Every structure is written in C-alpha cells, then in structure tokens.
C-alpha cells in the first residue's frame, strides 16, 4: 500500500456520501475503493444524477495518475445506478457490456464527477452514455448496456445517500 497521506475529500456543495452497505458486516467493493458521493439535481437537467469522488493515492497507478480500474468502476456504477435512476428503475441492474475511451488522465486531489445520459430503456435493457470529468475536462467516455431483470429482480443493493452527514461537517 502507498503510504502517501490522504487528501481531504471536501465534496462540493450538494454531494452526499453514498452508503452502499447499510450495516453489512463486510464492506463491498464500492466501499472498499474509497468514498463515493452523489448529488441529486433537478429532474431533466444534466445534474439530475452526479457521482463524485476525490482522487486519493490508493486510487492511482504507479505513474501517479488515477488508475483506469477506478475510472471503469465508477463509470460502471454511474451507468447502472445513475442510468437506472434516470429511467426510474429501482432494481439491481447487472452490466452486460461496457466500452471505455480513456481520453485524459486525472491526478491526486482532483475532484472527479460522473454523469449518465439515458440513451434508451427497453423492457429488458438499459443503454447509457457516461462521461467522467474533472472541472470542464472530460477524462473518460463510456457507454454501458445493463440488463433489466424481469419481475421485481434482485434487491437493489440498499445504497442510499447519507444526507445527515453534510450538516454535521
């Protein structure tokens, strides 16, 4: 593990930590990789669903930039969780395909945001485009296809935004 000091997350106004595990004994991957935040803006705007995180040393590659694996993990989440939110689907959506273009790097301390664009939802599939950005700079372009399970599907995963923490800090 890198011994580099942690950077303060300092999420911008409106972002809340996402609690993926809700008291589960073992943290899952979404918790393990670092703290992820989300913001819910007005419906129909580009900020309707935004995921964000501060780049920490533990998210980086040996060259000191944000690791592609971290970008792909967050883009996958933005596609399934954010795309599902835009489509009004409260189910766990397994990913069928993801395509990523790594267009720019990001550095420790950068605040990265991910936004989904709903392309189409059919009865069984959800098509989403995703951009990860640092400020105005796009760092990753991704497209995702998720399966929409029939019936009630599987448990959504219990992720929720922790809104009470923002007031405390």
């Amino acid at each position, binding site marked *: *593990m*890198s011994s*580099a000091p942690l950077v303060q997350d300092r999420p911008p106004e409106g972002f809340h930590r996402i609690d*993926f595990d809700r008291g589960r004994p*073992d*943290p*899952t*991957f*979404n918790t*393990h*990789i670092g703290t992820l935040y989300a913001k819910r803006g007005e419906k129909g705007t580009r900020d309707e669903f935004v995921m964000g995180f501060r780049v920490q*040393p*533990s*998210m*980086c*590659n*040996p*060259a*000191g930039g944000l*690791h*592609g*694996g*971290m970008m*792909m*993990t*967050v883009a*996958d*989440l933005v596609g399934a969780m954010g795309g599902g939110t835009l489509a009004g689907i409260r189910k*766990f959506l*397994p*990913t*069928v*395909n*993801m*395509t*990523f*273009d*790594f267009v720019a790097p990001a550095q420790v301390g950068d605040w990265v945001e991910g936004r989904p664009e709903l392309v189409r939802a059919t009865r069984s599939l959800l098509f989403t485009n995703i951009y990860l950005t640092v400020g105005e700079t796009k760092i990753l372009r991704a497209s995702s296809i998720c399966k929409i399970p029939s019936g009630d599907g*599987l*448990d*959504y*995963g*219990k*992720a929720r935004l922790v809104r009470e923490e923002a007031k405390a800090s």
Partner: protein
Amino acid sequence: MPPPPGFRQLTESIGFAAANGPWFERIEKHRVIRAFKPGPQHANALGIVHGGMLAAFLDSAMGTAVWHALERRAVTLRLSLDYIGPGRVGDWLMAEGQVVGHDEHVAQVRGRLYGPRHDVLAGLGVFSLLSRRRTIKTRS
C-alpha cells in the same frame, strides 16, 4: 492461500493495484497469465465480483500482454468488455491478453478472464504504445 503452480506474486504494485490485490503472474513462452483470488471486499451487492474489479484485472493482463509481445510500454486507449458470467468470490480467476495486431503507435489486444468453470469477461482493447525511449516515472 497459495497461488496455483508457477504463479509469482506481483510485489511491485502500489496504489489501486496494491489495494485490490494481491495479483499473481505466470509467464509462459508466448503468454502471460495473471491470477487473482477475490475476497468479500471485491464483491458487489449481489455477492459476486464487482464488474469494475474484473475490468481492472483484465485491463492489467492485456497491458502486460503488450509488454510481453512487443516490449513496449502501453496505456489503454479503449476497452470494450462483455460480461459473460459471474465471477465468484473465493475462486481463482485468471486473465490473459493476446496481441492481435499493431503498428508503431497502437496495438489491438483481445482479452479473456475466466474462472474454474466458465468464462467471465471478454475484452477487446486498443493500447497506445509509448516511445521505446520513454520510461514511465514511478513513485517509490
């Protein structure tokens, strides 16, 4: 948890790879195979291995395949992944890449990630080849 025969642990990892390992590698004549045994921290809400973790692991194996085949350092430009089956926590997962084409600047790589019973992830990637003279700066 000893790795399968012939695999050596990648000890030079730092950052993301170190936080999500350990990863292992076996070099054969014309191929490099990477292995990794996921734990509960690599699972998603369904208890199977997170797609992002699988993506990171296969990407690393495909990048290594470029180095092994062409002796060029490479960075991922594009990666397309098809999720075929679930990766199970506690199984040994293997990943390998095959360079299917290249010129001076880019290489096309096919990737495969599989468990003991079935294929998990299929990948097709485009990697940008770094100049032979350029070395990647690494933090110690």
